[in-house]
């Protein structure tokens, strides 16, 4: 040890080892990233003239947003109440319907075909953005809160049932075996071995979903599916920016309350 130290002079330069050891790979990655940036920026059809106008426009818009106009509060309250009601109802229906679907999607307690069908349903409904679901439902049941409700129900069911399925798959199978060993039927296994392990997380997920539904209920209206979003998008079309600002502030407040409530309840559940 001391021999090598005296033989070679102590180095005076040091560079930290890179995350990617081979320099060729490192530079290649940088080149790819740069090439992607150039390509994607070039591919976007941006009307630069229009974008350049954007900054004065933004200033103008902000100027018109203040002071926020709460004078049409009746319209505002009606929209917000509708959004919140859609969120409440959809969360409840979702949490009920998610239980059977979640059970079916748990690979360790269900036969393979049932599992596959349930998983496919969940993946399908999870992939599409709420607004896509909303517009499809608008086409099916017409404009109004029913389409929004159905959208939120589908989104809630897929989210909650996925969580249930994952919880069941990760639970302690020893407890299931122990209850099964007493000669219990499937329903009894469900109540005695599975439900106690999964219930607390399930309730937490439902509350979280209520919070998420409140957030989503404010946008489904943009495609005509009810709630405050309908009013909001109308104000943008009419350049009623002071009323837009009032709605946006209300939404921020609403989401803040929803999140606070959700955190509070989940804290209590723990």
């Amino acid at each position, binding site marked *: 040890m001391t021999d090598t130290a005296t033989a070679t002079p*102590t180095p005076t*330069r*040091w*560079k*930290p080892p890179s995350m990617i050891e081979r320099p060729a790979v490192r530079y290649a990655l940088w080149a790819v990233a740069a090439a992607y940036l150039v390509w994607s920026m070039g591919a976007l059809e941006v009307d630069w003239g229009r974008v350049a106008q954007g900054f004065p426009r933004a200033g103008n818009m902000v100027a018109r947003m203040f002071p926020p106009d709460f004078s049409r509060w009746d319209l505002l309250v009606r929209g917000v109440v509708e959004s919140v009601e859609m969120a409440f109802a959809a969360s409840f229906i979702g949490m009920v319907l998610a239980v059977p679907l979640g059970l079916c999607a748990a690979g360790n307690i269900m036969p393979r075909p049932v599992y596959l069908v349930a998983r496919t349903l969940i993946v399908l409904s999870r992939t599409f953005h709420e607004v896509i679901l909303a517009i499809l439902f608008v086409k099916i049941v017409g404009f109004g809160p029913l389409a929004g409700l159905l959208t939120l129900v589908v989104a809630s069911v897929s989210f909650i049932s996925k969580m249930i399925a994952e919880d069941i798959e990760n639970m302690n199978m020893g407890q299931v075996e122990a209850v099964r060993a007493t000669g219990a039927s499937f329903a009894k296994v469900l109540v005695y071995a599975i439900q106690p392990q999964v219930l607390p997380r399930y309730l937490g997920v439902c509350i979280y979903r209520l919070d998420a539904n409140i957030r989503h209920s404010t946008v489904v209206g943009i495609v005509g599916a009810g709630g405050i979003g309908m009013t909001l998008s109308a104000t943008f079309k009419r350049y009623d920016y002071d009323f837009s600002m009032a709605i946006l502030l209300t939404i921020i407040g609403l989401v803040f309350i929803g999140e606070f409530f959700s955190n509070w309840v989940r804290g209590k559940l723990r």
Partner: protein
Amino acid sequence: MLEITGLEKQYPNGFRALHGIDLRVDEPQVIAVIGSSGAGKSTLIRCINRLVEPTAGSVRLNGLEITRLGRGDLRRARRMMGMIFQEYNLVERLTVMENVLSGRLGYVGFWRAFRRAYPPDDVRAAFELLERVGLGGRHNTRADALSGGQRQRVGIARALMQAPDLLLVDEPTASLDPKTSRQIMRLICELAHERGTPALVNIHDVALAQNSADRIVGLRDGDLVFDGGPADLTGDALNEIYGEEDWSATIRSDEDDEDGAAPPPPPQASAGALGK
């Protein structure tokens, strides 16, 4: 060198950790600070470099009044004081070298630190220190891949990188096993003597303190109750610091330790055996 007068600390919750400590260090010596948990050892050390703000009193390092410095001056003053921690306090996800070089942060600008482009002299000093603390060749290892003893060696190297005028050492061995504790303590004392740097070492292990320090200071409930050489630390003195207890076993085990620690441990013998 270091002069502490009337140092007091009262925490916001009302707890008075230090009531008027006076301490002078005039020569480069290793001073062990002993006392039971909660006696104020950590607070004392942290009040010196103001990681904890003292509520009253004065701390002078080489004539510079530390307690009244503004932010920028405090930073410059902190460069003079190297600190070694109980839990090593390395940045785990950085390499050993980056941790050691972080001791120079007070001397380099933001961009140099960002690019890890430290001056050549600093890099050379870092390599030499790593060699000295027994971690030669480990500079590119990430800190979280090291054992406790090795991490503490990195911590020591980082503190010494500052070329400090004073070493503040907070329970350097409390998280280590007895053998490693003795090695680390010996390393700290050797380095302090080599470089002529006084060191203030908080330590729980009375035997280890008696064994390695040049001077011992005892704290009890925020008061300085003992200040003397290791030989003066009698059972009566320990009663004064820790409260009534039978100390004969502790003092005896200290002598046993001295036998074990004084001659270099037998690795050479085993290496020779392997060589044959």
